């Protein structure tokens, strides 16, 4: 089964302000994007499981115009706070890469 690293053109994380992390998965083919969405794999529950947050704290927004799915949820530690490991939040995407999607 293909994984996100094989299907997506972009899979990235970044701060959305100092308290939230946002993850984007972008495709470059409308049919593929629709299939990925229809697979029902990329959900609030997926992010909850991979990042140890409550599903209700995940804001999941598909953005059809950009063939993208965005998820935003609280950072583990606010940016630059004691124990933060990634001030810019740009290296938190890796657990998604191996998520398999039946397309």
């Amino acid at each position, binding site marked *: 089964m293909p994984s996100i690293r094989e299907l997506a*053109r*972009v899979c990235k994380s*970044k*701060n*959305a*302000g*100092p*308290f*939230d992390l*946002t993850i*984007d998965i*972008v495709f*470059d083919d409308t049919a593929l994007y629709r299939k990925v969405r229809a697979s029902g794999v990329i959900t609030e529950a997926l992010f909850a499981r*991979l*990042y*140890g947050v409550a599903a209700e704290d995940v*804001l999941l*927004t598909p*953005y059809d*115009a*950009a*063939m*993208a799915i*965005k998820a*935003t949820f*609280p950072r*583990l*530690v*606010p*940016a*630059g*706070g*004691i*124990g*933060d*490991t*990634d*001030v*810019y939040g740009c*290296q*938190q995407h*890796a*657990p998604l890469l191996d998520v398999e999607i039946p397309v």
Partner: protein
Amino acid sequence: MKEIRLLSTSAILGYGFPEASLQAGMARAPHVIGVDGGSVDPGPYYLGAGVPFCSVMAIRRDLRLMLRAATAARIPLMIGTSGGAGGAPHLELTARLVREIAAEEGLHFRLALIEAEPPRAELQRRLAAGRIRPLGKLPPLTAEALDRASRVVGMMGPEPFMEALDNGAQVILAGRASDPAPWAAAAIRAQLPPAPAWYAGKMLECGATPSIPKGHDCLLVTVREDGVECEPINPIRRCTPLSIANHSLHENSSPIHHIEPGGMLDTSDCRFDALSDRAVRISGMRWTPASQYTVKLEGVEFTGHRCISICGTRDPLLIARLPLFLEEVRGIVREKAAAFGVAPESYALIIRTYGLDGVMGAREPVQQVAGHEVGFVIEVIAETPEIAAAVLGIARTNMLHTDFPGRLCREGNMAFPFSPSDISVGPVYHFSIHHVLELDDPCEIFPITYEEI
């Protein structure tokens, strides 16, 4: 058809851009040039300490080229979030550089400085009047927390920039501003609707970042009533519908609802059409005015002083029992620090393990070290630099010398690349204020002063 051409030189003042791109961009006869001067992204330190995150040498270089270009073309130059964080010292540093460059180059213009660090008493009054609300999951702001903050800035919208332009300013340096604000100001003042005006700002705030290959370079955006056109100046870069769409996701919590001072930019029905193989037209954005004008407040509080030491191990026996070893070291530090009078609750000891979970911390799903060496950053944060250095010294010594069963490397567990091994990093801050302030007049906490240069 009415249009305004806006040229952004780079993602941040001081990131640099090719001089040839600026020249080629100026040949397109832009109405305004500018660049974003800062960001909250490098973390709380820069706001707290009042210093920029780009070097003065790099800022001066970018500023000199832009001042020359703007004065030669007689067009406005606008910089938001000056000096990296947009506080009073950041604005003053950028103003000083502008004055120095103008004197060296014999340039003359009307300079506007828009302040964004309101007096604390002013903010206390507004807090008492119930006009400050928390964002996200933060607790309501208290008078004590507002007092404790090392620095608090308000994030201005486009209106103070418009006022400065109305008053004839040619070079505008602003304190903390919403990244798209100066661009939105230029377009709205040119009688263009807020939706494409704000959208243009969203593209321009990062220079050529919406193009591929990504790089710190110039972007030209043409704003019209029914949309915007994006084109990188450098011929090696291209804007494509995918690169633009990708950028619309950048650093926001929702790709479709962008909350700004005074309203919301809704991009849910945007269309991205390639105009050529390197320019894209975006249309279909909408603007919904807010019933109450608000600006974001950003504030940081002093956390303590940080000391760090960097080391690594190449010992497979140690790597095999890493969690136990680190726990033992932490225990020894607790004991020895207490012995010289430092209680465990008066410092934070963090041992960052690169090769295991240095990047993702508690969110790291891989719990095994796969490599042959492991790197550590030993970190102590304490109330004073002396306590931080003392606890770090003990932690470093015990990372080096703590015995473990089966140990063969009896002269030391860690390779230290530096002497001195311990680095005092200075004060540490944390974000303590991330709230919104209601305003009756968008300019009321952003006073503008003018200077004839």
